[in-house]
């Protein structure tokens, strides 16, 4: 018999199984917390931070990512507050310039309406063409955790971070898999990758940034 944890989410008393996250516990009682990098089949990643909630325990309030925070006895969770709304609004505005059309854009627009975000706020600051990748890492993690092919990875650091197919492995696994096409929330992979080119990948393409 699993141990049950009592907590409070948005004023509701909630019983949750020990070991699940705040995000999961909220979902079970019908409270939706927005996510961008979360994927049910994957380990919590905590990169998009849009699932942030306020957690109060022992008189201390903290902003945490609900996708990775385990439920704790007696904790009080607020999934909406002035602070949380400000964080979500800012995150939507920050990620908007990376997007173009299709995929997750619809969801981001809905979120923008909900949180009063102006998706054009930072367009001028970036002065860059949209990459169409929000670096949620779902493809990278799916390829590693579910498919176990490890054919996609991150390169670069900081603002230079990007997703690449790792040529040697991609040429072996990708032509018969392509599961990341479905996983990618922005549709970038399906739109930009012609499966037939995988076998021709070389390390030089990779280093020169072609992929």
């Amino acid at each position: 018999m699993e141990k049950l944890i009592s907590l409070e989410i948005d004023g509701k008393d909630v019983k949750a199984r020990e070991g699940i996250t705040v995000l999961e516990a909220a979902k079970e009682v019908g409270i939706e917390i927005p996510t961008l990098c979360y994927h049910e089949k994957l380990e919590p990643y905590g990169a998009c931070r849009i699932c942030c909630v306020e957690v109060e325990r022992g008189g201390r309030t903290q902003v945490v990512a609900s996708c990775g925070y385990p439920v704790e006895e007696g904790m009080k969770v607020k999934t909406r507050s002035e602070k949380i709304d400000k964080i979500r609004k800012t995150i939507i505005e920050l990620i908007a310039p990376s997007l173009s059309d299709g995929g997750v854009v619809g969801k981001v627009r809905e979120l923008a309406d909900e949180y009063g975000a102006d998706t054009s706020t930072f367009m001028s600051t970036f002065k860059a063409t949209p990459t169409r990748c929000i670096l949620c890492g779902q493809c990278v993690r799916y390829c590693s955790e579910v498919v176990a092919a490890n054919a996609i990875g991150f390169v670069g650091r900081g603002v230079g971070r990007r997703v690449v197919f790792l040529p040697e492995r991609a040429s072996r696994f990708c032509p018969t898999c392509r599961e990341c096409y479905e996983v990618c929330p922005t549709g970038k992979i399906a739109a930009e990758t012609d499966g037939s080119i995988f076998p021709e990948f070389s390390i030089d393409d990779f280093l020169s940034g072609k992929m």
Partner: protein
Amino acid sequence: MSRINSFAELEKLRQEIKGKRDSNKPCITLCSGTACHASASESVNEALERELDRQGLKGEIGLRRTGCHGFCEKGPLVVVYPEETCYINVQPEDAAEIVQGVKEKKIIERLLYSNPVTGEKIVHESEIPFYKNQQRLVFGPNRWIDPESIEDYLYIGGYSALSKALSQMTPAQVLEEIKKANLRGRGGGGFPAGRKWEETKNAPGEPKYVIVNCDEGDPGAYMDRSLMEGNPHSVIEGLIIGAYAIGSHEGFVYVRQEYPLAVENLYIALEQAEEYGFLGENILGSGFNFRVKVHRGAGAFVSGESSALMTAIEGKAGEPRMKYIHMSQRGYKEKPSCLNNVETWATVPFIINKGSDWFNSIGTEGSKGTKIFSLVGKVNNTGLVEVPMGMTLRQIIYDIGGGIPKGRKFKGVQTGGPSGGIIPERYLDTPIDFDELTKIGSMMGSGGMIVMDEDTCMVDMARYFVNFCCEESCGKCIPGREGLRVLLGILTNICEGEGKEEELPTLERVAEVMKDASLCALGATAANPVLTTLRYFRDEYEAHIKDKRCPAKVCKNLINYYIGPEKCEACMICLRNCPTGAIQGGKNLVHWIEQDKCIKCGICYQVCPERFSAVEKLSGEPVPAPVPGREVVRKKE
């Protein structure tokens, strides 16, 4: 050397080493830390060796290459013992005179430090104001020992704390002592080390790991580096004691590959420690086993973050992960892991030897002991300083650092590296203390202290640190990555004179969100330089935006170079050096700058002889029209 098998054998060996050495025998010590190495202490060493050989004094005078002494500004440094005579800026050609001086017990006046105010020559190292006001504890042994010699370390009492812990104390007593000492982590956050140790000890799961964080990477900071280079055994000793208290049998040292000397000396020290029996099975006959592995970091600032560091040791890219469960519960390979910084570990042997009461007698209510800072930037005495907690910033910058060069005005001091903030003059009397520094928006950090004078533009400085983080963060979370990108964009606009007033609140909003919502502490603190400069130097931001003026005259787009016609002596120097040919005029003709051709490289400003000082920078004001062909009127001598 055969393994030491008991505490008695260790003491016997120590007595043997002491017996072999005559403390009255003259010894020339030469600083070979990174800074002195850069100013050619290597060739000074060769010259000294040659001289000792030539004058046939090899047996009578010792020569020892030590780690960093601290007074890097004046390197290469030589200190002659037992008198403790300190020579600064020593060159290879001084070697003969130094050796002869030691032989004849004569002091070489010209190589002594002279007080810049009174001109008085100071003979002894400890009387130099830079050293006099310090309390060199953890960093102290650096100047006495050769880091490659475990015998040197044993001579000054090395590994006696380990011996004491293993022979007279239970692991619980060691832990209790560290807890009572209120030792707080020296790496930045100031988390109580004892609590971290206890959490690791009590966490379920085996094995447990202890790890040294030597991934120091803040611009301008090199304390950990110098400690690891100069006294690696002290770090190893602290680590073994910690492992004993926690119940760990395997440790790691994460050291950045860009610190070649630290890596080298660490390997030598580990090999020696193993050979002497301080590492391995049944240490000193106590039954305690402990081994250390070295992980050389591939150089990313973000890898210094605890979860990123452990991920890196696991062989993956150094990226932080969510740590709602502490690293002390689930760290390296999901096992309880205790990570402390180099300086924290090196402090442990002192606490064990002298006791927690002694440690508590140094410092402030909330911050005990001493702290090493790297005092750099616009300050006269650049170097590494160790002071008791509670000393004020003013004392460090003025009494130890000797104030600001060229009589310029102090503007701010950046503590805590890219995660810290810039502290203005009105807080100079703030005592050095983890909590006090946090209160004024900065932080202790690992101990970088960059002094800035009136010629530093605070917007440009904030931009510099943000740019550093843009390149040195991991890029994993949106607030960290995109937030930094936006901050850099806005700050760059302001520096280029394109800033808009309505962007300041945006800057603050993004910075606040980064603080609240970033994945790790690097992202959460990366906006501190922006937030503190906005708080204390908002007028500079406004001057850039509203008046298109850079008050410190740094931001290229907002300044013009101008040659004062009254001051110009038509010496042709700037005219010849200008890379774009923008300077007009000629022999006997007053020079003037054709603004359209000027790329604002500042060469004319630098080369104009100080006695003329004709080239000036203008910002926020029109450049007076030149008068071509005007002849120079020379002042009568």
